[in-house]
């Protein structure tokens, strides 16, 4: 039996395959594939079909609104599941990630807490939730300044770790869109952690980047702080 191949008929497919293979080299956004696994618990809510039809952003918004309704009912499981699903659908939106982390760190441990529980149990429970919130914040590579600031804030307020918080505030302050207070807090927290010399050197390098005319930058105050550190620490 002779097998005949229609070569001209295959030409369009060959063009498609070769061209598509070439186009794969065009750089795209960071892979967010892993975060889709988080959508498992909300299967059946319409989130996946909506995302399949190009309605990822509106689907995430609806999940977020539903998470807020669950938050009003103080339904911890539904709140966390829906909020995390919104993050999974739109991992690049800081608003969902930061607010979900705040809910996990500050609201969820209080809702299920037995009022008669010993203080140590409550403290451990809060710290456990803060760690989960920090994991969520750190789960996406290439943090924005806002996410870094939130990580620093939670590390300081929730875990009481001034040194790690100071480093995170410093990393945030290095970003072009960082708020000025990130740099100021970084200096103070690192001094508190016993790294005054390092904090002073960083402040000295950071000061020229502060605009003199912007009251939020508080440049004069930071210059005074540098002089004070020079006097306290010495050369």
């Amino acid at each position: 039996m002779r097998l005949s191949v229609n070569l001209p008929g295959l030409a369009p497919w060959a063009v498609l395959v070769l061209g598509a293979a070439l186009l794969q080299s065009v750089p795209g956004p960071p892979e967010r594939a892993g975060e889709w696994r988080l959508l498992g618990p909300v299967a059946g809510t319409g989130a996946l079909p909506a995302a399949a039809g190009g309605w990822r952003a509106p689907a995430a918004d609806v999940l977020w609104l539903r998470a807020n309704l669950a938050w009003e009912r103080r339904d911890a499981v539904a709140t966390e599941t829906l909020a995390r699903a919104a993050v999974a659908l739109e991992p690049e939106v800081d608003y969902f990630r930061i607010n979900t982390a705040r809910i996990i760190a500050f609201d969820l441990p209080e809702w299920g807490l037995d009022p008669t529980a010993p203080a140590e149990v409550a403290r451990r429970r809060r710290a456990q939730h803060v760690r989960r919130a920090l994991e969520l914040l750190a789960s996406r590579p290439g943090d924005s300044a806002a996410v870094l600031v939130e990580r620093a804030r939670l590390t300081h307020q929730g875990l009481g770790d001034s040194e790690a918080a100071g480093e995170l505030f410093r990393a945030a302050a290095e970003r072009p869109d960082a708020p000025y207070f990130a740099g100021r807090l970084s200096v103070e927290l690192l001094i508190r952690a016993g790294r005054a010399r390092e904090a002073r050197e960083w402040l000295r390098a950071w000061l020229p980047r502060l605009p003199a005319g912007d009251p939020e930058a508080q440049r004069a105050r930071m210059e005074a702080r540098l002089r004070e550190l020079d006097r306290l620490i010495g050369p």
Partner: protein
Amino acid sequence: MSRQDNLSLASALRAIGLVARMTLSQAVRWRLAWFTGAAALLLIGGACWLRDLHFGGAELRFLLDLGFGAIGIGALLVAVLGTAHLFFGDLDGRMAAFVLARPVPRTSWLLGKLAGALGALAFLCGSLTVLTGALTAGRAEALGVAWPGLEIVRSGGLLWLKAAIASAATLFVCTYARTPLLAGGAGLLFVVIGHLRPVASAWPSEASLRGVVGAVVRLWPDLTRFDPLDWMPGTGAALAGYGLGYVALFAGAAALAFSRRDL
């Protein structure tokens, strides 16, 4: 290039322009396009109820998400169903045979069809983006937040690119299909798979995604790259190249397939 080649290129381009103009006027008369546009308009307008929820600055983001979601779904439906309708409308109405009986190359007719469909999509995406921008501009002022005008324009452009890929892919299917229903169905399936590509990549170890199926998934255009408001600075040219590359690819493959089709 000889003078003869220049002349034939010029006449081919003129033919593409004429077919595109004719296709555009057919698209304007297509009722489903107006219906889809009106539905998108209603969705964008309906998003205004969000102001009752008092979300503060985030409300603007939600408004834009819903607005662009409406534009996206409307544009994709028109891209897929409209392209199939315009292609088979000409074939079934013998208009294609009439045009191709003259010295008009098949490729010019096909590219003219695509250019007309892309023009109609540009009008749809452009007008709805302007409306979304106008709606959010007023709300941004009331909320006291910055109005992301440039981001809105870019998002409208990205949605057009996404719809353009869907339109070109549907045109490619049309060159093989015998009915608009089959072409439209396949076009919609193409869109769904294009949006689910990141999900498929999430399970790379699955046996079903190895081999031929895996290769197809990897070569499929990732339509989620064109999701509005996820703009990453510095990626504009790459994204435009990726989108227009796929449009050119499907158009080229469609032209090759159409050159061998029995009319």
